[in-house]
């Protein structure tokens, strides 16, 4: 087993800080003067939270776009050692095609991360409460202003809802893999009775991954191990149209059954998600939410033995597309093995106020600041998007994408397997819209020091 160098790994790679630090803010920055920027960076490095810091009140982490590295003087020979997706950035034609960022989701419409409002650096702030967050944010912003080397493009407040539910109303962040060598497995086992432990190399560069290989380690002139203990961070600002989702569910439930009530709506929505609002998986609780007012983090289940046909959890449901577990092929073992090579760790948080009435358009923006970490953007995050979420023929389905977050076309459908045959719902609108995004690299602590050197 790999022994991880925790003091060189940024704390955010190992923890979401969600329990201790529910308040968050993401600062997206643009480099305006390289020398001054490096001086400023040098001044904040001591504040960066590492994997050995046991912080309870405030954490600060940092990540960089390829554009930042280029402006810092990385040559193309340096850049080529990074992931191709990272080098390119999220908005090239190639990446748009892979991710399905077309139509309403096209980068031209984004509020940041596109040509009009590009970003170079991401600062992630986490605090125990809003007071502490404001204090630290004010100080950082003052330092940024004073530096003369970097400016704020966008400041994105985020938070964890007290009940951990995202805006559509579902418990989120349950089925996360754990990293070997971190003790996360034991903690998750205690909490949920189940843990999928993956090799550290899936999430931290420089260690063996699930294929018993080490993903390409970014190397730059003078620092051949620059990438060691770093990771790639994917950021997508996803607006959620809560009223659109629940109105669609309400109307559609009535077309299936004229007498449909709230319970039928909840069931239809659960079929689309694959879990009940409480988090309880449909594969285990097909008929009703076992904890209608509480939470259920059950994660110890598969589909192959119990629900290969999708009668309980539909084959195209969101949680089944994004993590098919043992059901991807007719061989459950092979399926599990394959799926392990394509996992991500989600570290996102909600933004915006929770709506008072899910059926009313209150004209306020709300959504998810989706953040995930992975060692290989193409094999992990992009694969999930392209091959599972937006695949029209996923698992021999026909002309469907993820019912929650999938790319839409004029007649987007979703099949709900059941007896005597599947029902199929039609004309799914966009329940989410991408508002911004970028690929970042989150370096290890030694690499951070390397970064501020003159090149």
């Amino acid at each position, binding site marked *: 087993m790999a022994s991880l160098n925790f003091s060189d790994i940024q704390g955010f790679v190992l923890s979401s800080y969600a329990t201790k630090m529910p308040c968050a803010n993401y600062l997206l920055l643009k480099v305006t003067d390289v020398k001054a920027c490096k001086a400023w960076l040098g001044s904040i490095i001591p504040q960066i939270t590492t994997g050995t810091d046991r912080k309870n009140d405030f954490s600060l982490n940092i990540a960089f776009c390829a554009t930042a590295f280029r402006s810092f003087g990385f040559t193309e020979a340096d850049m*080529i050692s990074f992931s*191709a997706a990272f*080098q*390119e950035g999220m908005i*090239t*034609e*190639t990446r748009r*095609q*892979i991710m399905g960022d077309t139509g309403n989701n096209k980068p031209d419409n984004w509020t940041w991360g596109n040509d009009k409002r590009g970003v170079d650096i991401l600062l992630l702030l986490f605090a125990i409460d809003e007071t502490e967050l404001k204090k630290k944010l004010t100080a950082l912003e003052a330092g940024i202003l004073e530096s003369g080397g970097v400016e704020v493009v966008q400041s994105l407040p985020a938070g964890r809802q007290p009940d951990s539910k995202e805006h559509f109303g579902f418990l989120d962040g349950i089925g996360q893999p754990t990293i070997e060598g971190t003790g996360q497995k034991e903690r998750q086992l205690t909490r949920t009775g189940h843990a999928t432990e993956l090799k550290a190399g899936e999430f931290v560069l420089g260690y063996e991954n699930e*294929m*018993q*290989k080490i*993903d*390409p380690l970014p190397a730059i002139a003078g620092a051949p191990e620059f990438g060691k203990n770093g990771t790639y961070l994917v950021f997508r600002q996803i607006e959620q149209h809560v009223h659109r989702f629940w109105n669609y569910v309400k109307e559609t439930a009535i*077309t*299936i*059954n004229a007498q449909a009530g709230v319970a039928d709506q909840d069931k239809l929505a659960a079929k689309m998600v694959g879990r009940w609002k409480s988090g309880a998986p449909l594969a285990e609780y097909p008929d009703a939410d076992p904890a209608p007012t509480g939470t259920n983090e059950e994660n110890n289940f598969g589909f192959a033995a119990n629900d290969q*046909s999708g009668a309980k959890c539909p084959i195209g449901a969101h949680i089944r597309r994004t993590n098919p577990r043992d059901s991807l*092929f*007719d*061989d459950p073992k*092979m399926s599990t*093995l*394959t799926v392990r*090579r*394509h996992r991500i760790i989600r570290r996102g948080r909600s933004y915006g106020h929770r709506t008072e009435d899910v059926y009313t358009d209150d004209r306020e923006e709300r959504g998810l600041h989706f953040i995930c970490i992975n060692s290989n953007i*193409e*094999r992990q995050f*992009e*694969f999930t998007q*392209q*091959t599972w979420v937006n*695949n*029209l*023929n996923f698992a*021999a389905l*026909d*002309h469907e994408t993820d019912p929650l977050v999938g790319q839409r076309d004029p007649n987007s459908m979703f099949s709900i*397997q*059941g*007896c*005597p*045959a*599947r*029902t*199929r719902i*039609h004309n799914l609108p966009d329940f989410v819209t991408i508002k911004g995004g970028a690929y970042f690299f989150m370096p290890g602590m030694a690499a951070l020091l390397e970064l501020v050197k003159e090149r």
Partner: protein
Amino acid sequence: MRQTILTFITVIDPAQKTTLKGILETIRGNLLGNAYIAFPSVTRLHFASFVIANDQDTESLLVFENNFDGEVSEYLDELLSVAGQGLHQIYECCTDYRGSTFNAHHLKHFLLEKITRPNAFHIGNVGRAAKVIKDNQQTREKLQGCLDDIFSKTSPGSISAVQLRTQLLAFASAQLPGSSTPIPPHETFAAKVVNWTKLILFVIIGLPVLLIPALIALPVLRRLEKTDEVDKTPPSTAEVEQFIATENHITQNHLAVVTDIKLPKFRLYLLKFVLFAVNLVARTATNGKLSGIPSIHFAHWSIINDDKQMLFLSNYDGSWISYLDDFIDKAATGLTGIWSNSKGFPSTRFLVLDGARDEVRFKAYSRNHQVPSLVWYSAYRDLTVQNVDKDSKIREGIAKTFSESETEAWLKLF
């Protein structure tokens, strides 16, 4: 219906290469409606492509890939009746094509002489004719619409499986003429027995006979493997972007890879042997899978260019990256056995070990040796191998008499 997989390989006249590329670009620009080849009118055709091998060399090859129903002679008759003039203009750009005016008989004769049959191939849906596949899709789509209609009026809970099937069959007999006539089996039992017999004979007779040569060959192979050079160049981002730009427009994708076979000749013989064995195994593939990979419609390996190179052509479902990952997870041994005889492949041990399991290098190798699919046509653009199979089962189930549990299973196909 027996399917045939082959390529026509011709040498491009260097003086005509620009013209040829222009024609191929025109075809690609309007794949379904161009004046050269009206692909959709070729009813026997499943997939076709044009690629250029060795484009940078003075002698480049035009590879015309064809995956079709029936025998080559009848296929060529149909193809030339649809696209004779267009193909004439294409082959005017190649050497040893004589004749300044189009003559179907002459062109057919020319093409028959340029056939390269694959050393090994795989077919996802054995024996299903292209026209039948497309008809089955239509039948299924209409039945799906009917099912949606039924459920818009009747709640699923209030109708039994048998009642539901009765309603669907009534719709089929009224609206889908011919859908209840049985279609002939796509693969005969006798053919399966023959294929299995060949494989078993090979294992019980061929392998023991080869034991002694193998024992002699093994140390030779190991010595060569230790000095084989591995291609360590990362693929050019610009080239990969060009490949990706042509991918994922429809359900399937196309992959064409040309590699140089290693020297000494020992490697060529080894490769031929491995392909022979792979081909025997591929003939017994079940459920449309090649070594557990469920997403390949047609794929084949051919030794080309005077035994100097290997050509791999594949028509597969889904993204390139998922296809390569499937290769690594499920078929690393077989494909390492094949490609380890090509120059630059990630380093191997004992022919089949390591190699493709080096994910990053293997993917880089595949991209580095990929050649652009200048023209690529699919006859059923939105069907996976598994979709074709499901559609066939739906269609075949219409004419059958089912028990209650068979009825339930049939309804699950929708």
